[in-house]
């Protein structure tokens, strides 16, 4: 349903006037540096990786909220990257996004009911205002904000974090999209409401027959929702495949490290912890060869010079010289 081909986004690094005058060459942050993946209909694809690995940029690229530097994105058979501005604007109802920070994602001056209704107005869904309002009320009930009249006329600041995120979800789903990007949708919420919201997302996914791109830095949450995952590191996908297989037997050293960091519910089953040492390197100046080599416990000489490509291995794809 979603197919991404060699997608790249390089953000230019701002130069100072002095640097421009001295003709210091323009440098780039390679936020997304040539990634490929597909998401089948009804699937939930988890995109995981530490902060700064390019997950948010990938999600926004697919929705063309950020224009790609190069590469292709297909939605079913439609090449999103080729749509004109106006075609894209009309097409947007098919693909929606749930943001990480619900406070930032809601316009503080808009009543939340109006914000949800807004999408219907933009796309001329529903005939009269009353009908649209009814649809909003139903949607509010569906995301467990009831009675809906109590919420429709409120402003974002009057709601709790969890309630705001339900509004953001309602606003995205009222357009009946086929594809939804959930960018760290529960990460900013209070721990006490996270599992409720995760459950809500899973229920809605089944009910609305959604295809999900589920972005998270926390591998633990992917367990409940993802069929497939891609592990990202500094703009590249390093391991991609079936969720269960990767989770049970991570092969890439970076994936191993991420999974070892997931807290084990059963304290008797102590795991060897492999939290990667050091910081994520500066993305403007990434390490040579395999970008993970300065932190990799298995690093070999070849890793410093040659960048591994993504290769088929054990029913998945891995970018590592070990395989």
């Amino acid at each position: 349903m979603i197919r991404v081909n060699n997608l790249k986004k390089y953000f230019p690094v701002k130069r100072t006037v002095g640097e421009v005058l001295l003709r210091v060459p323009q440098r780039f942050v390679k936020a997304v540096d040539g990634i490929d993946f597909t998401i089948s209909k009804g699937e939930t694809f988890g995109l995981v990786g530490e902060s700064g690995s390019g997950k948010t940029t990938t999600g926004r690229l697919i929705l063309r909220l950020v224009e790609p530097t190069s590469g292709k994105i297909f939605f079913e058979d439609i090449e999103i990257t080729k749509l004109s501005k106006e075609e894209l604007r009309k097409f947007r109802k098919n693909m929606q996004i749930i943001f990480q920070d619900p406070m930032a994602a809601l316009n503080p001056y808009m009543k939340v009911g109006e914000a949800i209704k807004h999408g219907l107005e933009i796309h001329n869904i529903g005939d009269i205002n009353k009908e649209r309002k009814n649809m909003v009320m139903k949607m509010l009930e569906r995301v467990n904000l009831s009675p809906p009249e109590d919420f429709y006329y409120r402003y974002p600041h009057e709601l709790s974090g969890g309630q705001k995120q339900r509004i953001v979800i309602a606003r995205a789903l009222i357009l009946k999209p086929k594809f939804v990007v959930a960018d760290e949708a529960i990460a900013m919420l209070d721990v006490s409401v996270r599992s409720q919201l995760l459950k809500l997302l899973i229920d809605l996914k089944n009910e609305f027959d959604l295809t999900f791109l589920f972005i998270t830095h926390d591998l633990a949450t992917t367990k409940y929702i993802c069929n497939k995952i891609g592990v990202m590191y500094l703009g590249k996908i390093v391991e991609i495949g079936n969720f269960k297989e990767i989770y049970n037997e991570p092969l890439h050293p970076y994936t191993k490290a991420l999974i070892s960091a997931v807290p084990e519910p059963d304290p008797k089953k102590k795991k060897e912890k492999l939290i990667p040492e050091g910081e994520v390197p500066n993305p403007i100046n990434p390490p040579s060869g395999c970008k993970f080599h300065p932190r990799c416990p298995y690093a070999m000489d070849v890793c410093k010079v040659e960048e591994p490509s993504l290769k088929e291995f054990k029913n998945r794809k891995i970018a590592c010289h070990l395989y």
Partner: protein
Amino acid sequence: MSLKSYIITRIILALPMILILLIMIFFILRIIPGDPVLAILGGKAPVEVIEAKRHELGLDKPIIIQFFDYLGDVAKGDFGVSTLTSRPVWSEIKDRFPATLELTIFSFILALIIGIFWGAEAAWRKDKAIDISARVYSIFIYAVPVFWLGLMLQLLFGIYLRWLPVGGRLSPRVSLDIKTGLFLLDSLISWNWEAFWDVLKHLLLPGVTLGLVISSIFLRMVRNNTVLMLSKDFVKAAKARGLKPKVVLYGHALRNAFVPIFTIMGMQFALLLAGAILTETTFSWPGIGSYLVLKIKYRDFPAIQGTIIFFAIFVVIISIVIDIVNALVDPRVRY
């Protein structure tokens, strides 16, 4: 706290500030060199005449006594009489104020139009020509002295091209029925088109001068705040919903950018008054600003004190009005 009690609190809090201002201006005027009597009579008047005038104005009493006398009068709403014209200060200010108001409103509207449209478009096309030119414009206008800008416009449109008058509010040959003191409004009310054109022509140069000055601050604030708002997720969300780009810009980003701008504008209002004073002097505009400059020249203490207090009250009122408007447009603000 209700809005009403908030306003009352604000007024009560403003009173000591105005009192301190009054004390400062009262004593500073009497410490700095310059004698009002000599300023009126000239240095060559006989000593007896000078002494008589000094006694008449009450300037022979000790300063502290003078101060408490003045304070007592002010508390009763009496700001004294001008030593220069012997007219009540308050009524002189009342006569002059509409001219300043008309100039300020005109300039503000011009600045708003420049600031909003150029600022929003510059933010939308950040780092493109329209943005870079906006930045250069606002730095240039901000750095240039108001009177220099005024002089240049006078030279070009008044002296060289002879399109517009270089000073005043109304040509002597034109008659106008004055009701509100805002001449544009007065001429419209009486359907007096001749006067309307004449007033507008007089207003154009000072209005544009002051308007450009205000617009430089305004443009920069609109541009920076809109850039900030455009990076926010709720703007991305509006785009993701399929909202038209111009609606995203003007309906979401700009509207949200406006609240902080509005507050800052309130704080900068005193600065704008300073701009108005310079503009009025440059264009002999008969408002409060040129009034103050004239009165300072003649050391007209009651008039200077009265004008400063008037400015202070005006600034307080404006900032309260801004707070009220803020409370009305921003659902998060509650008093």
